[in-house]
């Protein structure tokens, strides 16, 4: 009788001890899973390793300067105004190239998507030109424009054009024909049909094009600024290379990365707003 009472008690205390340690590990795992800081763990470790490596002389200063040195040169260039000036120039170039190339591409994508005549007139030509990599035009563009502003604008606009064009065109074409028929049967005019059915229907695809184009935009700008420019982040990096200022070169790379990230985040934000109805963009999704 007393045995029978004693045994289960011991059993349950052992059982209680076991889940407790499990619980702790589970709790830790859950914290790692849920914390907002978790994704930043690895970059911080890498940064620390980099700093230690540079300080102990494991990584030579000429190859990779310490993060602190990069931060210091960023500060120095900010004070002198050179950094702000170069960023502003690069940013303006990127945006104007994007606006010109993307704008024309958007208009053409829409008109070719909506009108068969427009498509037959221009699509074949555009598809042929599409096979030219925009960076292969650099020598030609330098011949045409020298290292003037137009050279960078042209290359960026050219690179941005195709992703925007193709995704707009396919977005318009992929709009549900049944919805268009519905709109017609309810007496929508062509303009209303376009505004309320075709354009919103094409929007998810258009955003894909824009985000893809942004990547190309920065890439084109980096290359063209490194080769032929007298200002801008790329120019700053190339000049620093001549004077062996590795810290400035690294800084330029980081700035490109930051600019790219900012632009992408802005578009994501826009996307989430404009596509709030879309099951994959609605609230709660990234």
């Amino acid at each position, binding site marked *: 009788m007393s045995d029978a009472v004693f045994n289960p008690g011991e059993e349950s205390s052992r059982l209680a001890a076991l889940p407790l340690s499990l619980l702790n590990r589970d709790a830790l795992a859950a914290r790692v899973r849920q914390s907002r800081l978790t994704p930043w763990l690895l970059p911080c470790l890498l940064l620390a390793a980099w700093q230690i490596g540079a300080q102990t002389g494991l990584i030579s200063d000429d190859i990779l300067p310490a993060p602190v040195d990069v931060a210091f040169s960023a500060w120095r260039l900010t004070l002198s105004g050179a950094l702000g000036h170069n960023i502003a120039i690069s940013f303006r170039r990127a945006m104007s190239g994007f606006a010109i190339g993307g704008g024309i591409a958007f208009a053409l994508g829409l008109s070719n998507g909506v009108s068969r005549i427009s498509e037959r007139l221009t699509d074949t030509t555009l598809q042929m030109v599409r096979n030219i990599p925009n960076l292969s035009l650099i020598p030609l563009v330098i011949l045409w424009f020298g290292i003037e502003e137009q050279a960078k604008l042209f290359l960026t606009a050219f690179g941005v054009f195709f992703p925007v064009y193709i995704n707009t065109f396919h977005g318009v074409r992929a709009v549900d024909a049944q919805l268009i028929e519905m709109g017609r049967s309810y007496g929508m005019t062509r303009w*209303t049909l376009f505004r309320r059915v075709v354009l919103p229907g094409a929007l998810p695809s258009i955003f894909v094009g824009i985000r893809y184009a942004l990547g190309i935009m920065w890439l084109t700008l980096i290359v063209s600024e490194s080769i032929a420019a007298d200002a801008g982040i790329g120019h700053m990096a190339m000049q620093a290379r001549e004077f062996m200022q590795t810290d400035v070169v690294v800084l330029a790379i980081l700035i490109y990365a930051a600019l790219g990230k900012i632009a992408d985040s802005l578009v994501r934000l826009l996307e989430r707003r404009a596509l709030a*109805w879309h099951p994959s963009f609605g609230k709660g999704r990234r």
Partner: protein
Amino acid sequence: MNAINPATHGIGMSVRGLRKRFGALDVLRGIDLDVAAGEFVAIIGRSGCGKSTLLRILAGLDQASEGTLRLGAGDSRARLMFQEPRLLPWAHVIDNVEIGLGADGGKDHVRAVAALRAVGLTDKAKAWPGTLSGGQKQRVALARALVSRPRFLALDEPLGALDALTRIEMQGLLEQVWQEQRFTAVLVTHDVSEALLLADRVVMIESGEVAMDIPISLPRPRRHGSAELGALEDVILDRLLGSAPARSV
């Protein structure tokens, strides 16, 4: 409440010798059909016999190859309900309903809300269509079709994709709004019992012609599974099935 006179609110129509060809395919080969104002007509027939084609011509979405379609005097705008709800996913439910007011209707929030209330979905006005169930979507489509108070409602298997229970609910709703508003209704359906439950008349299309046209004079509301409906359903199903081997298209 002002009572609606069926003879003036619904629109009558008369079809004579209507033919429709798609290339070499003769789909409709001389349809003669009269629909009285405010009548509820169901069209049945085998798949591919041309029911949708006929309905689209009646609703003015397509043109006949031959023959005449005469509509009663006055506003002859038709509204069409499809098997799919066809709601704009990027417009809130209420805005989808407002589309039904048509190009000239503009934005009339009060009427849109009233139409939503009629289908029992007032609380979903600001929801995205993507968050609704199939039956709810079809109810929004019904509200959109009815918000402009059409005199003719064409329905192409609007309940075909719904589960059995939702379907029975929707049939009740359809009958109710029809009795309140007294538009002329032409319903294409695969479901013979649905036709018998709702319609004043059941028209069967076969080989591109009207093969059978029987009035259903049972009192309303009719009950699913009642003996009279069952007997009529047997007769019609026998006719549909019995004619199967004779068909070539």
